[in-house]
């Protein structure tokens, strides 16, 4: 065996070691692959990678950043990204789990509402970047609903979220991004105030709206894939027909699937 083949490292092994060195900051994992003193040069790549991930989190959570300040945000982001690297080359989708991380992040414990604001911003990012499916064929839905006596389930638009929050994160978010100090001071934040907030993109424009409890329960039933006939009959106090109409009008559902006895959900 000659020296050349004795030291040969496959490309897969090379990339595993370089990736590990860049993720952990332990340059020693890959130093022998490179000529010269490669440590400071690997550090430049590590710096670029971390900088890109911090920037992506910042773009997806601008209100969280303003609430805690840029230095605190960057510190928290660097701790988060060490355990949660990006999975896909889609940085506008990066940050799944950031709200959960903030909820357990001891230095932010005083800001009890922070994780809810992060949850809301995650839904906003999704509303802004989700794909645009073909619109729902209302006539086809009507025919299918009549023919099956409502035994079908609606498919939500990928931009749509209904959030269950403990704090008025939508009001905080709006006041922070608009720089409205008065509105921020007027908020009572001395205890949890559970609420539902709808986030969607309607004809390109972002919608962030609180939803009253009965209406939220109805929408949640639809989002859970309930049979349309059962969802419509669920709450006798609610005008579900006009509610469904307004959801369809706003493009919140883009398809439906039949549910017969043979293919239960």
């Amino acid at each position, binding site marked *: 065996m000659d020296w050349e083949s004795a030291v040969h490292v496959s490309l897969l092994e090379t990339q595993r070691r370089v990736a590990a060195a*860049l993720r952990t900051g332990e340059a020693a994992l890959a130093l022998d692959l490179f*000529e010269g003193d490669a440590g400071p040069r690997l550090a430049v790549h590590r710096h670029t990678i971390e900088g890109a991930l911090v920037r992506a989190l910042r773009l997806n959570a601008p209100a969280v950043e303003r609430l805690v300040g840029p230095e605190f945000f960057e510190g928290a982001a660097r701790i988060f990204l060490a355990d949660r690297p990006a999975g896909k*080359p889609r940085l506008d989708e990066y940050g799944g789990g950031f709200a959960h991380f903030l909820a357990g992040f001891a230095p932010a414990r005083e800001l009890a509402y922070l994780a809810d604001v992060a949850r809301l911003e995650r839904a906003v990012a999704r509303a802004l970047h989700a794909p645009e499916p073909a619109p729902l064929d209302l006539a086809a839905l009507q025919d299918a609903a009549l023919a099956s006596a409502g035994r079908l389930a609606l498919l939500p638009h990928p931009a749509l979220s209904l959030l269950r929050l403990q704090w008025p994160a939508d009001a905080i978010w709006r006041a922070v991004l608009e720089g409205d100090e008065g509105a921020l001071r007027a908020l009572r934040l001395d205890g949890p105030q559970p609420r539902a907030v709808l986030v969607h993109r309607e004809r390109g424009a972002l919608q962030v709206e609180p939803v009253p409890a009965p209406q939220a329960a109805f929408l949640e039933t639809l989002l859970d894939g309930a049979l349309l006939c059962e969802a419509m009959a669920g709450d006798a106090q609610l005008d579900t027909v006009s509610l469904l109409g307004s959801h369809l009008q706003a493009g919140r559902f883009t398809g439906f699937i039949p549910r017969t006895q043979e293919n239960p959900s």
Partner: protein
Amino acid sequence: MHAAPSGRIPAQAGIGLRFPHHARVLQERPPVPWWEVHAENYLGGGPSARTLLAIRNDYPVSLHAVGLSLGRADGIDEDHLARLRELADRIEPGLVSDHLSWSSLGGVYLPDLLPLPMTEEALAIVRANVARAQEGLGRRLLIENPSALLRYRHSPIPEAQFLAELVARTGCGLLCDVNNLVVSCANVGGDPLQWLDTVPAAAVGEIHIAGHAIEVLEDGSRLRIDDHGSRPVGETWRLLDAALARFGAVPTLLEWDTQIPPLEVLLVEAGRAQSRLDGLGERRARLAA
């Protein structure tokens, strides 16, 4: 609604379009012959995708991908390839490009363009990935030369020869980034003019120019950092002239990605590139007379 122009990218100076200039470009429609965008920023269906479609109605657009990770040893990400294909089918770009580098492995994406060792094994892997990407996109790819900070101990094939082999075996084209050549040759050695002479001239479908930074490391050595955050330096302009003399007039793009200046600054720098492209025709005409 304007009629969409032909998607063909002219052999003129275009500009890399970034978010801070979206609104002005939509309102003012500045006289730029073509734009290039980072494909991964427009894969969704929201406002940025709408903006790109509106811009495409008035200009040819080139899609520059950063996420195919063509050098990865564990096979191309088919899901990402399919999303790029959807975008390309919507935008009808005049050119599609990505880099001779890797950035994803397993389920992890490292947002940087990481270097490859120039070996026979790497050539076989990149060749298979480029062939699959071209098939999946239904389009020819231009492959951009990397800006290197590091040199692998075992990297026996010169980069220009590696790229020439890739062109011969996959039918891909080349995107010659002259700023990357300046940066790489300063950081890890090499002769940029020899590089220009080695790659197949007919395969070069686009040129990039950009600025870079200089960082002094702890040991006192100077490293060029390809940050696209300033005007192209004199060396880059001289190398652009040398590249145009060899490759002829090809679409030339100004990239600026950090500390993005007002559009006017980009128009001035692109204008400098355009005058070099114009001068090329005049020099050739003089030689022919």
